[in-house]
């Protein structure tokens, strides 16, 4: 091994790690002990490595980060998607079933049934986008999103508007509304603002929207809704005058 070859190897040496166990590294270290010029370079390099390493490890972690991570434990971060009931203890599932049954019967007797109106659906999905949303698949490849959705029984045959074709896809997910699968496709507008496209079968609601997009304000967001073929669409984004129109 020449001095130059040893230097190439020693560039990647980290004191105090398992690097020294590497046979090539060990040979280079031995040469640095014998070659004064290489030895001087290596001492300087070690000092540089030590200082940089110490600097990186001084990066302070915000005090609030851990708490904010723990507040949002996994079970609390799922929304609209049913919880994995089969993972729960049997007794808990049974008790929950009884409670649901009792409440369901009471609800049926005491209150008018919540209508399966499109406005309710739209409010729910837009609220989900506004408060917290989870992408099941994070990708810029629409084909991947469609494959994932199809595998989960959600509408995967949705049509993209011309405006949306030009936006950056960030991923998608499957939601449910009243047991109906809902497709969520997420786009980045480029200024840290997101656009959400929700797709559900028109048969899931009594009053699907018309074919021509209608704009409404929903929960501090702007939403467009329309029906095309067998699907209903909701496109939601920041509340800005006329901004949605260019994506329709």
């Amino acid at each position: 091994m020449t001095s130059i070859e040893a230097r190439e190897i020693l560039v990647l040496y980290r004191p105090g790690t398992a690097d020294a166990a590497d046979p090539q590294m060990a040979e280079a270290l031995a040469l640095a002990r014998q070659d004064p010029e290489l030895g001087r370079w290596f001492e300087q390099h070690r000092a540089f490595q030590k200082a940089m390493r110490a600097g990186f490890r001084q990066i302070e972690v915000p005090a609030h980060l851990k708490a904010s991570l723990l507040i949002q434990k996994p079970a609390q971060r799922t929304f609209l998607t049913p919880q994995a009931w089969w993972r729960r203890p049997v007794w808990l599932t049974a008790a929950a079933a009884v409670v649901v049954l009792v409440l369901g019967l009471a609800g049926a007797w005491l209150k008018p049934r919540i209508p399966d109106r499109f406005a309710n659906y739209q409010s729910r999905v837009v609220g989900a986008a506004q408060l917290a949303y989870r992408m099941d698949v994070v990708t810029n490849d629409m084909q991947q999103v469609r494959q994932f959705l199809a595998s989960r029984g959600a509408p995967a045959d949705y049509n993209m508007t011309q405006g949306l074709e030009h936006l950056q896809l960030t991923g998608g997910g499957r939601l449910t509304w009243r047991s109906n699968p809902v497709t969520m496709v997420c786009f980045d507008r480029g200024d840290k603002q997101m656009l959400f496209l929700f797709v559900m079968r028109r048969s899931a609601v009594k009053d699907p929207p018309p074919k021509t997009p209608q704009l409404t304000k929903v929960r501090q967001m702007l939403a467009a809704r329309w029906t095309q073929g067998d699907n209903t669409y909701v496109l939601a984004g920041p509340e800005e005058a006329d901004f949605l129109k260019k994506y329709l």
Partner: protein
Amino acid sequence: MDFQSLVDLHYAALYRFAMSMTRTESDACDLVQQTFLTWATKGHQLQDTSKVKSWLFTTLHRCFLESRRRLTRFPHLEITEAEAELPNVEPDLVSHLDAQEVLRLLSQVDEQFQAAVALFYLEDYSYNEIASILEVPLGTVKSRIARGLAQLKELVLRKAVPPGKATGGST
């Protein structure tokens, strides 16, 4: 391992890695949040529990690339010729580096080298593990680290010597 134990063990290291790449506290926190959220939904698919930490780092790095829209892969550079770029840096020039200065220097290094350099200094991972986390070949990782270090040294020298008077050539 329960969720709290997982957070306890890894959140600080993940944050430092995220901060090395984003240099913004809020963005780094978002990346860590997203990483644990991904764990919550997909972590059960990981069969080998000894790979939890590297899985988290890989996930965070993917989230970062996604957030930066780095859709094109960085070129796979081999390690040859990287050594010629490595200048000498006197120990005095780096003896007082703090985290802020280190992050500032790293921000000026080519973006494609930054993650590898950050992992190199933050964690005692082997080069094979770093390659696995960043999902690039071993030679590429070594090259990125070597070139990243060379750029860091140049930046330290440039900071110490006013432009036009630099004397720290390659040796």
